[in-house]
């Protein structure tokens, strides 16, 4: 017997704000620092990148890492470091727009399904389950074949894979809140459905929804980079981590630095957002924690 197993109920600090609990967690601090660095890179990308990321210089093509090109150059002589730095902006923009849209669409549909009539509820849940029944990448590939690759396609794919999950969460919460006494009281006072949903139910479901959404940011970044890697996302010559990886893959035998450079920010950002998301979830609501 090496460790006591009877005390596995998480002990929640009674005092201290969410913020303090977040900073008390070393992984939370690490995640926060990484995310801060990534956001800063995206905002200051134009100043940080030493070259124009789309500037072609054939004579310098596929040169190794050096002081003038930290991560070397690609097959068109473009500076890989600059492409990765500016790619940060694309990654964050797509993730932010797509996750926000998913929260709005999933949230509204979830509220309607949970509060509306039974038939409407069943119909919306069936739509959620149908969209969720496709493996994300398969749905993405079917969509790309029909409407062609673009940034909008990537955003539609992300929304389709996130919104049903958010909708289900909001629906479940709304269904139980609908039976709450304060909602009955409000209805007795003559409040309409819109007022009850907006003023009384929404504030109660938004917390868990935002926690879930914040943990999906790295997944959104991964989907964008993945589709761009396949050539179905961001259109060239726009720099994205995925397109840098794609360039590197073509020359993996002799120029490994392009793949290393394209993958590194992806690894750092998914780690940063995941660590921050987990620490945030534990800090806001320790009951949501999956493992004690």
């Amino acid at each position: 017997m090496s460790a006591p197993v009877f005390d596995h109920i998480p002990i929640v600090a009674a005092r201290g704000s969410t913020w303090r609990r977040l900073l008390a967690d070393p992984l939370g601090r690490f995640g926060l620092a990484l995310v801060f660095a990534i956001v800063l890179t995206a905002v200051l990308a134009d100043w940080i990148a030493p070259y124009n990321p789309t500037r072609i210089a054939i004579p310098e093509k596929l040169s190794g890492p050096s002081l003038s090109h930290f991560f070397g150059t690609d097959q068109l002589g473009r500076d890989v470091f600059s492409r990765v730095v500016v790619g940060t902006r694309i990654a964050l923009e797509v993730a932010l727009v797509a996750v926000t849209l998913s929260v709005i669409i999933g949230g509204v549909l979830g509220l309607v399904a949970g509060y509306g009539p039974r038939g409407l509820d069943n119909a919306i849940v069936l739509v959620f389950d149908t969209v969720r029944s496709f493996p994300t990448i398969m749905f993405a590939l079917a969509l790309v074949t029909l409407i062609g690759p673009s940034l909008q396609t990537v955003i539609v794919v992300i929304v389709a894979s996130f919104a049903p999950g958010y909708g289900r969460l909001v629906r479940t919460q709304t269904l139980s809140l609908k039976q709450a006494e304060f909602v009955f009281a409000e209805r007795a006072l003559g409040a309409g459905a819109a007022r009850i949903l907006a003023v009384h139910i929404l504030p109660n479901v938004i917390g868990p929804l935002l926690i879930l959404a914040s943990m999906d940011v790295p997944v959104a970044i991964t989907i964008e980079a993945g589709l761009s890697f396949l050539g179905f996302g961001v259109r060239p010559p726009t720099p994205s981590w995925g397109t840098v990886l794609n360039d590197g893959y073509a020359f993996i035998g002799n120029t490994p630095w392009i793949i290393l450079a394209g993958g590194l920010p992806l690894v750092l950002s998914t780690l940063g957002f995941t660590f921050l998301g987990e620490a945030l979830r534990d800090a806001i609501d320790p009951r949501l924690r999956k493992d004690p």
Partner: protein
Amino acid sequence: MLLYSARRIGLALVIILCAVALLFGMIYLVPGDPASVALGPLATPEIKAAFRARMGLDKPIAIQFVTFLSIVFSGDLGIDVFSNRKVSEIVLEALPYTIVLTASGIGWAIVLGIPLGCWSALHRGTWLDRVSGIFAVAAIAVPSFVVALYALLVFAVALNWLPAIGAGEPGHLGDQLAHLVLPSFAIGLGWVGYLARLVRASMLEVLGENHIRTARAFGLSERRIVLRYALKLAVLPTVAVLGIGIGHLLSGAVFAEIVFARPGAGKLVYDAVVTRNYPVVSGTVLVTTTLFALCTLAADLIAAWLDPRVRASL
């Protein structure tokens, strides 16, 4: 249990039907003309009209839908635009590769993830437990296609320990296994982390229960308690999760097949997307989605069989 099974199977069938309808509907729901997308900007109106006639796109939607359904349920899933072969033949040729790859990915997760989770639970609170926890989160977070690319770079290109591309010589088991190691590791790594977390949590829960305390009071060795009594219970929740996991693993398999140039459903659908071969894309998507739905169904039924509380939730 019978009622639950019947309802759950019915729901799965409805969802598969809806998925078929959605795949069909997507052709019309999405903006743009399929003929223009397939043929490119240089196609003349005559070529586009001929393409529409050939694909049946000039008929009323209702008739097209019935045709589509009859193609799906006749089992041949339509005809490949380029090779004129049945789509079902092409998909069934590719699918076994993907199933083997996915199963091997789960294999990595079971072989590494479950022991890691147990070990963490038994060393709860030590720094080793903490390190394995961080490893688990990191393994879940890092995109599988980046793992695939880095594994390819390190173990195939730089060190030359394992083969880089293809699925190996047919009939040569050792060669095929060698080709399987890197891609299955790439798609399985996230699930190693996931299973480790899940097993650790459920193991801690199980170890706190009365029958384990009784076993301990009888003086059984810790090893025997964990392996004979606790592990069996602690592994149960993973069954339900693995069903959903198949979907993620399939997504990972698409990337792994492309990175390692392996034949399979992922490579097939990718090549079909590049050539805008919609019958092959929709056929493959349909087959993999059905497979995914069946795996989720199987996992739900097993979970309900193991735990009566689940049955009440549908």
